[in-house]
C-alpha cells in the first residue's frame, strides 16, 4: 500500500514537471527562412509541432489548434543563442576560493528576472548562465532556455544540455585572490597555471582513490574506509572524464596558449575560450587543438589586458577555422546579438551565413546542443525568431520569438509591464526618481559578487 502511494506521489511529481514545460504548435507562413545550415529559402513555411520543427516547405497546412503567423516579408531564423550570460542568476561569483568547482549556477537561477524577457524580445532563446571570472576554476554553469513565465528554475534548465564549467585566467582571478585580494595564490599568470594543474592533479588522485574503493568495497572481507567525499574534486574528476565542457574567461594570447597546453597534458578535449580578445593571435593553435572561441564583437580597452584587441577578432578566428561565436556577457548587449554579429561583416567581411552562425549554430556547438538547436532543420527544437527586416540590418526589428513552439514574444501584443512577480509594497510614482542604474555597459559583469573581496576599487565599476 505504502509503495503504491509512493508511486502515485512520484507520478504526480513527474506529471506536474512535464506539464510545466510548455510545448506549442505554430505554423509560420511564407517567410524568408534563414536555415543557417541549409541556405536561405524564400517564401517558405516552417511548421513547429508540439515544440519541434516538423516540416519546412511550401504551402504547409496548419494542424488543428496551431497558431499561424503570416511571415510574408519577414525573415525567419533559429533562436539566438548567447554563449556567455549572467541573466536569471542571483549570484555570479563564489569568489572565496580560487577553485570553486563545487558550486553550480543551476542552484542559483532566478526565473523572475525581467532581463530574460528583454533578451527574448531581442530574439535570444537560449543563454549560457555562467559563473563569474573571479576564480581560476569557477563554478559550474547552466544552459537555460528562456521559458519566461515559469517560476520553476528546473523548467528553465535545458533538458539534456551537457554540463559546463567556468574557468578564468589573467587579471580577474589574480586580483581577487592575489596580493590585492585575499593574498593567496594566484597573484600572477604563473599562479593561475599552477592552481589549475594542481586541481587537475588532485582530481585525478581523487578519482583514482574512489575507483579503487568502489572496485574493492564489494569484495568479501573488505573493511576499509571510503575516501572523503569532496564535491569540488567530484567536479574536477568529471572534467577529466570529459563530462564537462570548460568555458574559460581569457584575454591574452599567452594565457590562452597556457590552458591549451594544460588541457592537452590532461587529455581534456572540450574547451571553449570566452572573451578571448587576443584569440586572433593564437588562432592557428586554437584551430589545431579544436578549441573554440566565444568573443565580443567590439569590446576592448576597458582594462589593460584588452588594450591590444581588434574588432576583427571574430573574422580572423573564423578564417583560421576556429568555431567562433559572439556573446554578450551583458543584459543589454544580449538584446541585439544579431547586430553584434553583423559587425563581423564590417570588420572582416564575413558572409551572411558566417555572421549568423556566430549567434546560432556555433554557440550551439560550444554548448554541446547543436543536435537540438542552432539551425532550422526538421527535428530540431521549435526555437525561432522572426525579424521585420534582415537580421543583419541595423534597421531590423525582432517581431516574434518562439520557444518550443510557444510564442514568447509578439511585438504587436507586447505589454509594457512584463514582470512575473510584483512587489505589493512598492510605491508607484512613475515620475519619481527611483530607477535602475544601467546607463552604460558594465564591462565587468563577470566580477559581480566578487567586489567585496577586493581592496581596490575599479574605475569601470563606476562607469
Amino acid at each position, binding site marked *: 500500500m505504502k509503495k503504491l502511494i509512493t508511486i502515485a506521489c512520484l507520478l*504526480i511529481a513527474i506529471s506536474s514537471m512535464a506539464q510545466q514545460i510548455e510545448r506549442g504548435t505554430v505554423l509560420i507562413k511564407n517567410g524568408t527562412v534563414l536555415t543557417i545550415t541549409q541556405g536561405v529559402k524564400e517564401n517558405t513555411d516552417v511548421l513547429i509541432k508540439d515544440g519541434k520543427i516538423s516540416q519546412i516547405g511550401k504551402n504547409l497546412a496548419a494542424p488543428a489548434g496551431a497558431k499561424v503567423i503570416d511571415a510574408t516579408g519577414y525573415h525567419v531564423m533559429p533562436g539566438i543563442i548567447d554563449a556567455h550570460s549572467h541573466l536569471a542568476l542571483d*549570484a555570479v561569483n563564489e569568489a*572565496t576560493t580560487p577553485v570553486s568547482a*563545487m558550486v553550480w549556477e543551476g542552484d542559483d537561477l532566478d526565473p523572475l528576472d525581467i532581463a530574460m524577457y528583454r533578451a527574448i524580445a531581442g530574439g535570444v532563446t537560449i543563454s549560457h548562465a555562467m559563473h563569474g571570472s573571479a576564480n581560476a576554476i569557477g563554478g559550474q554553469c547552466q544552459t537555460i532556455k528562456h521559458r519566461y513565465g515559469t517560476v520553476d528554475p528546473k523548467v528553465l534548465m535545458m533538458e539534456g544540455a551537457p554540463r559546463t564549467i567556468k574557468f578564468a585566467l589573467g587579471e580577474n582571478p589574480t586580483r581577487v585572490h592575489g596580493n590585492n585580494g585575499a593574498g593567496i595564490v594566484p597573484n600572477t599568470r604563473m599562479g593561475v597555471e599552477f592552481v589549475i594543474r594542481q586541481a587537475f592533479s588532485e582530481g585525478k588522485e581523487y578519482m583514482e582513490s574512489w575507483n579503487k574503493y568502489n572496485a574493492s568495497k564489494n569484495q568479501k572481507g573488505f573493511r576499509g574506509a571510503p575516501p572523503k567525499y569532496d564535491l569540488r574534486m567530484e567536479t574536477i574528476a568529471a572534467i577529466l572524464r570529459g563530462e564537462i565542457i570548460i568555458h574559460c574567461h581569457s584575454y591574452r594570447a599567452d594565457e590562452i596558449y597556457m590552458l591549451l597546453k594544460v588541457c592537452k597534458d590532461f587529455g581534456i578535449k572540450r574547451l571553449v575560450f570566452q572573451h578571448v580578445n587576443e584569440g586572433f593571435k593564437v588562432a592557428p593553435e586554437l584551430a589545431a587543438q579544436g578549441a573554440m572561441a566565444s568573443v565580443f564583437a567590439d569590446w576592448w580597452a576597458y582594462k589593460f589586458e584588452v588594450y591590444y584587441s581588434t574588432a576583427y577578432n571574430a573574422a580572423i578566428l573564423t578564417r583560421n577555422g576556429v568555431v567562433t561565436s559572439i556573446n554578450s556577457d551583458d543584459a543589454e548587449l544580449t538584446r541585439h546579438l544579431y547586430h553584434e554579429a553583423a559587425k563581423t561583416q564590417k570588420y572582416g567581411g564575413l558572409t551572411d551565413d558566417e555572421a549568423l552562425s556566430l549567434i546560432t549554430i556555433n554557440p550551439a556547438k560550444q554548448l554541446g546542443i547543436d543536435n537540438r538547436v542552432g539551425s532550422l532543420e526538421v527535428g530540431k527544437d521549435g526555437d525561432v525568431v522572426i525579424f521585420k527586416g534582415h537580421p543583419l540590418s541595423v534597421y531590423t526589428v525582432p517581431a516574434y520569438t518562439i520557444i518550443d513552439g510557444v510564442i514568447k514574444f509578439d511585438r504587436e501584443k507586447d505589454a509594457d*509591464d512584463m514582470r512575473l512577480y510584483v512587489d505589493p509594497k512598492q510605491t508607484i510614482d512613475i515620475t519619481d526618481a527611483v530607477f535602475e542604474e544601467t546607463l552604460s555597459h558594465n564591462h565587468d559583469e563577470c566580477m559581480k559578487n566578487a567586489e567585496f573581496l577586493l581592496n581596490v576599487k575599479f574605475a569601470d565599476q563606476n562607469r
Partner: protein
Amino acid sequence: MKKLFSSVLLKKLLTVAVFCWPAVLFAQDELAPVSRTYAITNVNIIQAPGRKIDMGTVVMKDGLIVSVGKNVSIPADAIVIKADSMYVYAGFIDGLSRVGLTKPKDEERGPRPKDPGNPKPEEAGITPQNDVRVSLNPAEKSIEELRALGFTAAHVVPYGGMMPGNGSIILLSGKSADQMVLVNKSSFYSELSPARGVYPATVMGVMAKYRELYRQASLSRAYENAYASNRAGIQRPATDRVLESLYPVVDKRQPVLFKAERVVDAQRVLTLQNDLGFSLMLAELKEGWDIVNKIKAANAKVFLSLDLPEDKDKKDDKKKDESKKEEGKKDEAKKEEPKKEEAPKTATAEEKAALEKRKAEFMARYVGQAATFQKAGVKFGFSTLSAKSGNIQANLRRMIEAGLPEDAALASLTTAPAEMLGLSDRLGSVDNGKIANLVISDKPYFNEKAKVRYVFVEGTMYKFDVKDSKDSKDGKKNDSGSKDAGVKAEGEWSISTETPNGVEQSKLVIKKEGNTITGTMSGGSINPAVGIDNAKLDGNALTFTFTFNYGGSNITVEVAVKIEGDSFKGTSSVAEYGSFPTEGKRLPK
C-alpha cells in the same frame, strides 16, 4: 584584530558586570497561585475546528486538561474562572520563530580571513550541533508578546548561518530554558543564508556545501556503523561535530526545518530535498501560491508566514477618503473631486493605474496564499519568524477575508501544527489528557473586536486586563490628545530592573524644558551618577539610554517604559545580553 579583541573583552566584562549587579532590594517573586487546579466555567469551548461545546466547563489540574464538557463537576481545590460567554480554544502553535531568544549582536567584521575558501565551520555559519536551550531566555519580552496573542507553544531555532543548529519546541512559559522545552532537537534547522566573506558566500555555495556535508555524513555514518560492529583491524573514524549532527537527518529520525520566504528559495530547498531525500518542513513561506502542487508532491510539511506585506495604500486611501468626506461636508462648493475624475487621462496616469492594478493583484496573492493552500487541500501551519506581533491578529483576519475559512485558520494555529510536529497527543485541541494550553477570548478569536483575556500555558494562568472597548477607545483618543498633557515624566523616580542575578535599584531624575528631556541615573552600580541620553517622551512612552562605567568598560543601557501616573513599567536592554523588566515609582517630594 584589535577591534575584535576589544569586543570580546567587552562582552566578557559585560557578563561579569551584569551578574555582579548587587541585589540591593529583595525582589518579591510573583505570588504563587494558591492552587494549580483551575475550572473555567460557562464558556464556549471550541475543542478543535468543528467541535464546539456551548457554555461548558474546562478543568485543568497540574498542567493537564482533566475534564471538558457541559456537566463537569468542579473540584473543590479549583480556582474558578467565570468566563461567561467567552471562547476557549487550544493554545496556538507557532511553526517557526525565535521567540525567547536573545539576538546576538552582529559581530564586527574582523580582518580579512586568511584563506576564505576554507573557513572553520563556525565561521561559515555551520553550527548544527547548537542547542537552542543555550540562548533561550525566559525573561525575553518576545515571549510575553506572542503569548498575549494566544500562542502557547513555538518551534524555536537558534540564530546562525546556513545550519544554525537544532530547533526545539518550547512552551511559552517557564522559569528556565530547560523547563520551557517540550521537545528538544525536534528539527534540524537550515537556511539558505550565505556566510560573510568566506565560503559559502553565495546561495549556490550554500547549496553545494549542503550537498557535500549531507553526503559526507551518509558515508561517515555508514562507516561508523561498520566500525561499531567490528572494530578490529580498521581505522578509527574521527569525530566530527558537524557530520554527527547530521546523522539523525540522514537516518530520517529528524526532519529538516528550512526557512524559505520567496518562491525561488522554496524551490531551491525542494531541489535539495529532491537530491538528498531528507524529510522536510518548509517554514515562513510567503510566496507559495504558484508552487502548491510542487510542495504537495514533495510531501513537505509547510508553515506559512504570518507576516504579510503592509497595505500602505489602503491605509492612506482610507485616511484620504475620510478627510475627503469631511472636506466635502465642510465645503461642498469646492467640488475638486469630480473635476479630477473627469480630467483627461494622461499616458502617465494610465500607466500608473495599470501598475497599481498589478500591485493590487499581487497583494491579493500574498494575502490569499493561505486560502490557496487550503483550497488545494494542503495542510499547513503558521510561523511568526518575521511577523511583527502587533500585526498577527490583523493579518489572520486579512487571510480570512481573502477566503481562508475560519475553521481552517484555527486548524492551522492548533491541530495542523500539532500533527505536523508530532504532538497531537499533547497539543492542538481542548481534550482530556492534553497539556493545558488554552487561549480565552471575549469574542470569537477572529472577530475584529476580540480580545484575549486569559492564556494558560501548561496550566499556568496569564490574565490580561482589558478595559472594555469603550474605555480603550477613549484611551486612544487621549493618547494623542489631552492624555499626553497629563503624563508627567519630570521628577525623581526610583527605578528597579530585574536582572538574572537580582534586582538593580537606582534613582532616576528627569527634567523637562520645553520638549527637551534631560536627566541623571545614579545609585546601585551606577556610581558616579551619569546623564541620560536620547530621552524622548511620546504619549506616555518614555525612552532613553544611559552609559555607565563598570570596571573600565562602558555599558550602554536602553530603557523603554510607559508612565501611568506615578509609576512606570517597561524594559531595560543591554546589547548582547537581552532585555529585563523595569519598574519605577515616583519618589515622594
